[in-house]
């Protein structure tokens, strides 16, 4: 299994016609209803470009052509290099990559088993753990450290990530200032802004607030990043039944309209600036009103959103592999497995939130990362498909073994294992006696032991000393400047 050459796209929920219907419905929404932009400069840019802008209500209504012109300028792929080139990512077409994500605030402590607030130590240990987990391709900032300057928590998170993983990095900025400082970190690693544009070592995501609302900070950050001509992720997160229509198609229309509005702004500022299409929509649970992160419909909508993104020839920042369970139990297993498999088969490119998260993304768990790595390993196996060749059709070995023989002692068997069989690391296939002899451990216990072992032994190559010094200088300046209370 070549985990760096995974291709999805076998699963589709929409016909080509239905994709176009969603596209036209989104254009309708943007022209008839419009989108709220809490940003004077953005309103000015839209007005000058020919949009109908209500300056008082801050509502922008978009002519179809303006939106379609913007989306046509975007590049088809985004290259995302990692500190270690073997982890480089090419977000394009049906290529599939997995990573964590979402800013959980709590952690299930690996030793005490108690749920507690995340710390800077976690913001270093999680990337270190993920660095060692085979089926996670990238690292997205996923734990909010409660014990650092809260204005700079995202910047500290990015610093922790750059130090503790050689994998590709993404983060969610809390402010435009921190966003620019994170880009500056990437710039230092690349050796200048011109180099960073070719080798963007970090990508940031900005989301609309559904329905049809772009807040000041994210708009401001989109404008600044577009001016720098660096890649970014633009998307939205409607929740069916509360901040979005209850219907799956309706939520897709809203996600499409909001995302197109954000992309149009970026393209007006900087034609051709690379953007990734973002969809993180899910249901609101209609009994409680809470975000249903583990909903199976999230998987379905993300597959459909991948089809829509491909219609626009854009890579997609997809979502899948989440759970609403409070602990690593059966619910966590089935919700995550269904979502991850679906979105991978659907050809989501940069699939975040794919591991480690519990409690509707509020909590991260070390052992859950190890369990999800196993789920993603199985998904990886599925994506590798069924190879059909003379060798795999195996007529020769069937003849050699013949009726009443067995295949166990055949070279063909031994040689086929690495290509054909997923070898589980934590799943148990022992006989009961042996399982009992080894302590009758549950998956969670085995995963916890593995997480401990990784954290005890795994240390990625540190940042070059001079780079680390410059990163620390960025933090120091931020603390003394915009980060002051």
């Amino acid at each position, binding site marked *: 299994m070549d985990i760096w050459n995974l291709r999805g796209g076998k699963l589709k929920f929409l016909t080509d016609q239905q994709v176009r219907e969603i596209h036209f419905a989104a254009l309708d929404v943007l022209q008839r209803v419009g989108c709220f932009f809490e940003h004077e400069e953005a309103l000015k840019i839209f007005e000058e470009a020919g949009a109908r802008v209500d300056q008082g209500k801050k509502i922008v209504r978009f002519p179809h052509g303006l939106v379609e012109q913007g989306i046509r300028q975007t590049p088809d792929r985004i290259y995302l290099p990692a500190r270690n080139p073997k982890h480089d990512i090419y977000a394009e077409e049906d290529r599939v990559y997995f990573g964590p994500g979402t800013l959980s605030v709590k952690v299930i402590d690996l030793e005490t088993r108690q749920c507690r607030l995340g710390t800077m130590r976690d913001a270093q240990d999680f990337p270190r753990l993920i660095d060692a987990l085979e089926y996670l391709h990238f690292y997205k900032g996923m734990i909010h450290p409660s014990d650092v300057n809260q204005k700079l928590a995202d910047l500290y998170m990015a610093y922790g990530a750059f130090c503790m993983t050689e994998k590709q990095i993404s983060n969610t900025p809390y402010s435009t200032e921190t966003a620019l400082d994170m880009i500056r970190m990437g710039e230092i690693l690349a050796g200048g802004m011109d180099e960073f544009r070719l080798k963007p070592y970090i990508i940031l995501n900005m989301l609309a607030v559904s329905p049809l609302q772009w807040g000041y900070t994210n708009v401001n950050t989109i404008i600044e990043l577009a001016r720098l001509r660096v890649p970014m992720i633009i998307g939205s997160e409607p929740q069916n039944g509360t901040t979005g229509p209850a219907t799956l198609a309706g939520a897709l229309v809203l996600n499409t309209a909001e995302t197109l509005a954000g992309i149009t702004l970026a393209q007006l500022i900087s034609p051709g600036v690379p953007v990734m299409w973002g969809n993180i929509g899910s249901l609101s649970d209609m009994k409680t009103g809470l975000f249903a992160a583990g909903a199976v419909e999230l998987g379905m909508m993300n597959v459909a959103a991948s089809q829509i993104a491909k219609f626009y020839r854009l890579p997609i920042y997809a979502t899948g592999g989440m759970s609403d369970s409070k602990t690593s139990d059966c619910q966590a297993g089935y919700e995550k497995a269904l979502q991850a498999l679906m979105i991978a088969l659907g050809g989501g490119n940069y699939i975040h939130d794919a591991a480690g998260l519990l409690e509707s993304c509020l909590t991260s768990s070390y052992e859950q990362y190890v369990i999800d790595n196993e789920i993603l390993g199985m998904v990886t196996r599925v994506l590798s498909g069924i190879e059909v060749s003379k060798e795999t059709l195996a007529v020769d070995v069937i003849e050699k073994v013949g009726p009443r023989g067995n295949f*166990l*002692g055949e070279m063909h068997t031994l040689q086929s294992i690495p290509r054909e069989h997923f070898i589980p690391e934590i799943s148990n296939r022992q006989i009961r*006696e*042996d399982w009992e002899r080894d302590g009758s451990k549950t998956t969670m216990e085995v995963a916890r032991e593995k997480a401990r072992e990784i954290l005890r032994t795994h240390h990625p190559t540190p940042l070059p000393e001079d780079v680390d010094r410059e990163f620390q200088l960025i933090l120091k300046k931020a603390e003394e400047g915009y980060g002051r209370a």
Partner: protein
Amino acid sequence: MSSQILEKLSHAIIGLNMEEAQKQCKEALAAGIAPLDIINIGIRSGLNAVGEKFQRGEAFLPELMIAAKVTEAAVAVVEPELVKGGTKTTTSAHVVIATVQGDIHDIGKNIVILLMKSAGFVVYDLGVDQPAESIVLKAKEFEADVIGLSAVLTTTMSKMKELIDTLIEEGIREQFKVIIGGAPITQEFADAIGADGYGPDAARAVHLVKKLVEKRS
């Protein structure tokens, strides 16, 4: 020189290279190495190395099976010289093995047989669907030390007890060690029917026979 050949032989087994193993056996014989040393030092140490790798979870079962096959082929080269010289192999365990009546599953049994043979036991494979009486008959005929019974179907497990009852009825229960195995078999079941042992997998079945035969001698 001779230790070099035996090392090469051992490596050929570990490398699952049948041709090379047989070639090294011939060279060892030509160099005048005692056939028993060729088997014990050259061949079996190679197989043991693969077996240990397997026990540590570092090798897949097919690797062990192929190593056992290579071992068998290598032993076949040396064996005629052993017979000529009049020496006996070091192990003396004679095992009669069968899948019980009503059951035609045999892959597990065959794996056990292969590993037992490569461990140096003399194994008589009676095949599948064997009634208790004929297994007992063959065990007497071959003067077996151990009777091995296999069953995959829950419905045929009871046949194992029938065999033990037959031995008791004939007053020859003490002549044979009876060991059992198969997917539905547990140690509890083995104890309940009065079997002498249970092998949860092929490697442990081999250990079991060694232990039982040691006790006996």
